[in-house]
């Protein structure tokens, strides 16, 4: 416990520095005439401290500062249990807009419904729930799943001379991305019986867990053709296992992610990842900020369904087609 606290201490000091610098960065003057001024927005992410959520938060804060509404973050730190507690408290605080990052399609469904019933507009970001709400900003998972699966079929399927063995590493099996990407991918693989899914084990979004899973999979299947990691952060762990096994280039490592340079492009440059379908977290942050502005101004869809913004995709590939300009850069901490 004490050893654990020591490392926590170090991380906390770094964390505090980050928090302080973020507070300083948002120095844009608000427009006092804005109808959004004084309203309240709460963001409940799965966890802060990752480029995805930090990237979104940065843009949303800019919008909040520009229009004079408050923007608060309640960090669940990868703890699904804590997350529904945090959301319950956030609903009690009666914000105007609640931004929710669903860890699973089911977990927060009841609370989203409850919030909507109380007149709180819920914006679901990137990972949606079973429960529809006012708006959704995020990637089209079915499309990504299909595209990656088709790419895998092309590289590993009939005529490629490869084994056709694929390992899927979801973050959380029941998270929206995994549910939809798996569904789409299996649909594609079904038409190509030469593709065999040898593993479909969740990494809990942890690189280390993904690495361990990959080590085991590679031991059992040294002729593995591709790894389909559902999120770049943990898939980098899988890529490292491939590297350690000396199989770089032989086993393709696919990932999806926010496309931040230090994460995605670096990993592709050093050969940890083979390709990333990026949904561009920076762009999503701006989309989310815009959506919040619209919701605060009373925007609704004409038929009461979810307002949806689908994030444009950028496919970053290793090799001759590699283009680092497809990545965005998190500004260095001041």
């Amino acid at each position: 416990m004490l050893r654990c606290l020591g490392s926590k201490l170090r991380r906390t000091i770094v964390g505090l520095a980050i928090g302080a610098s973020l507070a300083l960065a948002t120095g844009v003057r608000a427009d006092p005439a804005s109808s959004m001024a004084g309203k309240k927005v709460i963001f409940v992410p799965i966890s802060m401290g990752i480029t995805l959520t930090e990237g979104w938060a940065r843009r949303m804060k800019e919008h909040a500062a520009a229009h004079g509404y408050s923007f608060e973050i309640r960090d669940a730190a990868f703890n699904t249990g804590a997350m529904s507690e945090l959301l319950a408290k956030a609903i009690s605080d009666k914000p105007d807009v609640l931004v929710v990052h669903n860890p699973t399609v089911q977990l927060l469904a009841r609370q989203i419904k409850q919030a909507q019933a109380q007149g709180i507009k819920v914006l679901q970001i990137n990972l949606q729930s079973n429960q529809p709400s006012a708006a959704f900003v995020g990637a089209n998972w079915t499309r990504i799943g299909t595209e990656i699966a088709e790419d895998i079929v092309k590289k590993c399927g009939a005529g490629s001379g490869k084994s056709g063995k694929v390992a899927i590493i979801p973050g959380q099996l029941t998270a929206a991305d995994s549910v939809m990407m798996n569904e789409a991918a299996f649909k594609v693989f079904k038409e190509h019986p030469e593709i065999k899914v040898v593993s479909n084990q969740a990494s809990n979004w942890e690189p280390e867990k993904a690495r361990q899973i990959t080590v085991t999979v590679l031991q059992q299947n040294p002729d593995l053709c591709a790894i389909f990691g559902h999120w770049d952060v943990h898939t980098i762990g899988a890529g490292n296992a491939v590297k350690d096994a000396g199989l770089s280039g032989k086993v393709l490592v696919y990932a999806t992610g926010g496309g931040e340079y230090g994460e995605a492009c670096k990993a592709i440059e050093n050969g940890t990842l083979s390709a990333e379908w990026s949904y561009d977290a920076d762009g999503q942050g701006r989309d989310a900020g815009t959506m919040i502005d619209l919701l605060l101004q009373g925007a609704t869809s004409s038929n009461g369904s979810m307002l949806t913004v689908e994030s444009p995709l950028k496919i970053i590939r290793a090799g001759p087609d590699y283009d680092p300009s497809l990545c965005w850069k998190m500004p260095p901490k001041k």
Partner: protein
Amino acid sequence: MSAQFDFSTLPKLRVPLLVMSPRRVLADILSRGWVENAVPFLAFVCVIVGVLATTKGYFTLDNLRNLALYASDGGLVVLALFIVVAAGGIDLSVGSNFAMSAFAALYCFHILNLPVAAVLLASLATGAIIGLVNGALAGLAGCGALLTTLGAMITVRGIFTLASQGQLVAISTSSRTDEMWDWIGSDRFLTVPISFWVLVIAVAGVLVMFRQSRFGWHVLAAGGNRKAARHGGIHVKATIFFAYVLAGLIVGLAAFLYAARENAVASDTGVGMEFFALTALVVGLGGFVPGRGSTVAVMIGFATIYILNNALLNSGLRSDFVQLAMGAILIFILSIDTKFRKHKHRLLASAYVDPIDFKLGEAAGSRGFMPSEVAPKLAGAEILASGMIDGPEDVILDADDHLYCGTRNGSLVRIAAPDYTQVEIFAQIGGRPLGLASDREGNILVCVAGMGLVRVSKEREVELLTDQTQRSLLTIQDDTTIRMADDLDVAPDGVIYFSDATRRYDIENWGLDLLEGRPNGRLLSYDPKTRRTRTVCDNLVFPNGVCLTHDGQHLIVASTWTCSLLIFDLAALSAGPRVFVHGLPGYPDNVNRASDGGYWIALAGMRNPVTDLAMRHPGLRRRMTRAVAPTHWLFGNLNIGGVLKIDGAGQIVETYWDEPSGPLYMITSMREHKGALYLGGVTNNKIGRLRLAGADPRWTGRRSYWGRG
């Protein structure tokens, strides 16, 4: 017949209604059981105040409901771990068990479409089975609890991951809803979430279990000292086994509530839960303490941790910082608690003795009767049963002239008439038998320090008549238990009046009561007809000997440290006592009737000017008790024995002194019987008998009281 007193002209004694001082309040609080939980409770209050001060709208009704809703499953898990720890084990598998049981519930609900009652059963069964395995290995087979449950934690987590992999998506995308399920998961009853009611009921159940039930006591005994529990005849292994099963069952219940509320499990469900629960337990109990059943304290610890964690999370701080802050605050709380527990006994010991300025009136009425002025008549006493008895505080004789006395090892012995050389144990009572009396039927009534009032029949049956009286108002210390029953007498209507000399000290420490000088004693009564015990008069200064007057209408009570005799009117007890005799030259102990209408008073010790002066200086006595060994304390002179005889009006008419060299020393009682005086002493190993010249040779106590025998 000698002179008579007139009750109405005697001076009234003012008895204080309440004895209270800051030091006494502190000492009384420190000696209460619940003070053990003071620091966890204070920590809880501090957390509440801290959260109130630093947040806005945290304790709104809405958020309190949130807290209640989300706290309940965690609270149940803490409760489960608490039971196992109380039994001397530990359960690291609670988190895995929780996840597995929640998965079982969701699987049964969403995949098998079972009714909610069956879902509950499945969840409970899963929890109980895991508890069963833990219990069988750790309890029955005697594998270490840590290793067993660590193994269970890993194994069950593995099974959970394997089992859930294939089903989680199906569960997450299931559309089944059920009114009952939603009601349990998110509805309220009397504005409070359902799950919180479940927690409240479970806590009440465990509280009652540990306080009242045989199983609960066995669990605590097994946890407190396994070996002693086994020697006490407890099935230790089975007890521990069932503790694990019960814990598993409670975890299953918690998981059911969680499943109904969240409608989902994730791969991280229950991860780290065992450490959260352990932390709550450690904060509540002030350490990892097996064998302690303070359910409320554990729940306070849980509430502290839970609210602290929740408030920190909600404050929007980074999660790393939340954990750091939690850790720091917990270490702070625990270090204070540990220090407090460590030093509590010393603080109590130094605060307990609380002397006051105690003014003793001048000695009066004894001029011409002092040892320097009369011959030591007791030097001529015969010695009976020398070396065969130990500590006859009081002596009494029956109709056949057999002599009875209590002894230090808790027995009532009979010394057979007529030669008084045969000593036999008449009845084994226990405690420290002190004052004796005989009732109309010839049973012997005994005041037993540490026990209460006991009746020994002629058939030698021992019956505890009473060991409790009503609790006095406005005291912190629970004083219902009779601590030092000292002497007694029986009124014509059969009511037994007896003194409880001090509520604050045990028999070994009666000397400290003198040094304190406060009115710590009380006069009690017991009515054999109604079997009720009453407090007749509270707050008396060391009430000791009790004697019914010859007319049967008044009661004399010796107040030892004030060197006086008080007198009550039995027809008007609530009017309080009057002072019958004051200014005695020594400390009066037992008082008994004399054949000529007067009374005998045993003097346990002699006053001296130094002690009288020291009694005026409370600070001096306090320092003395703390800094000086007891053998060197300033104290009354206990080395010389004496008996006073007063007439019916309270005038000293005769004195009987011992030689400084004995043989009787400290005399605590005397009985006149057929022309002789039988003398007992609480520290003596013999009984003295003195022939009384001119006394009625047919007079006995029994005949004086009951007219026969």
